[in-house]
């Protein structure tokens, strides 16, 4: 496995530093995952206190980003890493930016959940939002797993999964429009729900970005703005050549 590349280092302390950064990124990821779960619970259960708590806790995510960012700059300055290590640091800096944005989206959902808790809830209790939320949660989880294991296959699979989120987002959007046309009194709530699903869709996009950084970290290949199929073909070719 490619993770082994990071562990064969002449300097044990450098090794430990890299490992610590990784662990910190994943701890941040874990916290953001929890924020997402809590914000969705607040929305579905109509728990305004929980929604406010999520919005308040966003400062912790920002703090983690700053601290990891500093550590990365320090490693760049003092160790001048090369090849795989350099890619890891670069990918980490990008990953935490996306994680921080995901945290911001969770904050938004928390705010809206707190507001929605005060008004009447729809008959289906936001079932479709809950479903989309579940999908995005598992997307996040798989993304962070791929980051932890440096697993390119999983990262590719998760990238594709993002399309499902986009489709579901479209479906809920259409549904909301229908509801709002049927009964103009639901417009206020409908707009808020739209904001929530929009945030969830954005979280899906950020997760996809992180998956792309994982691929970059392992293969040194930037797959942004290229089709995944093409990349997969290249991968297969490279594997064929090696054989």
């Amino acid at each position, binding site marked *: *496995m490619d*993770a082994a590349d990071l*562990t064969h280092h002449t300097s044990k302390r450098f090794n430990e530093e890299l*490992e610590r950064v*990784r*662990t910190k990124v*994943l*701890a941040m*990821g*874990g*916290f953001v*995952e*929890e924020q997402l*779960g809590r914000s*969705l*619970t607040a929305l579905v259960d109509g728990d305004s206190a929980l929604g406010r708590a999520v919005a308040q806790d966003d400062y912790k995510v920002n703090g983690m980003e700053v601290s990891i960012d500093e550590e990365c700059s320090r490693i760049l300055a003092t160790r001048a890493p090369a090849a795989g290590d350099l890619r890891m640091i670069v990918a980490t800096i990008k990953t935490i930016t996306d994680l921080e944005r995901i945290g911001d989206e969770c904050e938004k959902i928390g705010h809206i959940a707190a507001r929605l808790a005060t008004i009447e809830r729809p008959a289906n209790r936001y079932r479709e939002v809950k479903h989309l939320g*579940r999908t995005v*949660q*598992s997307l996040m*989880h798989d993304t*962070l*797993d791929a980051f*932890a*294991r440096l*697993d390119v296959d999983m990262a590719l699979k998760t990238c594709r999964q993002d399309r499902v989120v986009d489709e579901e987002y479209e479906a809920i959007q259409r549904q909301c429009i229908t509801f709002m046309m049927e009964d103009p009194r639901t417009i206020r709530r409908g707009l808020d729900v739209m904001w929530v699903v929009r945030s969830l869709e954005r979280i899906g996009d950020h997760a996809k970005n992180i998956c792309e950084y994982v691929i970059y970290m392992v293969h040194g290949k930037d797959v942004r703005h290229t089709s995944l199929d093409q990349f997969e073909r290249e991968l297969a070719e490279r594997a064929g050549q090696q054989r």
Partner: protein
Amino acid sequence: MNSSGWLFLGARLSLAIAVGLGVGALLGAAWAGLAVVLVIYLSVLLADLSRVLRWLRRDEPELAPEIAGPWGDLVAMIVRLYRRKQFHKLRLLRLLRELRRSTAAMPDGVVVLNPQAEILWFNRTAARLLGLRGKSDIGLRIENLVRSPEFVRYLRGGQYALPVILRSTVGVEQYLSVQIVPYGAGQLLALVRDVTHQARLEAMRKDFVANASHELRSPLTVISGYLETLTQDAAIDPAIAGPLQEMRRQSARMTGIVQDLLELSRLESSDSSAPEQPIDVVALMAQLRRDVLARPLHPAQVLMHADSSLKLLGEDEMIHSAFANLVDNAAKYTAPEGSLQMRWWTDDQGGHFSVTDTGIGIAADHIPRLTERFYRVDSGRSRATGGSGLGLAIVKHVLQRHGAQLSIESQEGRGSNFTCHFPRERLERAT
């Protein structure tokens, strides 16, 4: 070594020497004959030795050379040693395999971690519960894969006495209990159990108690109301006045139980720690003292000692109900000629509130179970005094939410002492 090899060697050697000497003597050169025989004999021995060496070097113990004499004995012994080692090795291997298989089949998840919390081994259940994957996860840090902030805090905190309950929201809702057991040289063993079922049952139990007590309250209010009017009705037949009085007393007791149950379920439903309102303990003690003295039967002496005027930080109502329960109990079980003493003091550890009485006391074997719901030391006596059986359970829960502990000392016939120990964070900072 048995002597057959040496005997054989000796016999052969003497025979060879005799033949050599004999043939040499016949040819007229006995010494030369002897020398020839000895050279032949020596080369045979050396050839055997080289066969043994070649066999050992080839590392194929099954193909032992067939050699007579001491070299043969040596080969036989080496083979025997090898077989014995092989047997032990196999037995150990089998044992190890059995052990692994049994751990793998355990209903609880097991993860073995090194001091850096890197995964060394895990069984199938752990893989299923924590979402770990085959060989690729060996060597990764567990906190990178189980990222719940609560778990990370638990892992890094180093306080492993109690398990941590993790709620997973990905996919189906699941509650996992994870306990870390340190062993050996800094190694860690993480035990994972699925407690979803228990967590659900617990939630259902709490809901049931809360709902049932709530539902019981309204009919009870109606019954008590009518009973009250009836007992005050002068036109009532004196023959049923007594039973009516008793009914009123019992319905009042039932109301008390329902109220206590509601209070308990309220305490249980929120696990957050109590807010930090400053409470004037000295004033509270004075009020409790007045309440005791207002009882128709009360201990002759009700003393209060306030060694500190520091305020306690907590929820006013809860602390009041907990302290009142302690004082109430003491007053109930102390004879009118006895004494009751309340005390409030603070030290380096924090604040302490104690209630000491000279009542009937509690036998030592009852003390650990006193705070259980409806636990009766003696079913006769508490019913006679009209307790709900929930007082100390409430005290325990209130103290838990304040991070405090209850210690109970008692001697049968001498009296009891209940002390609440509050941590220092729960004291108002002295100005």
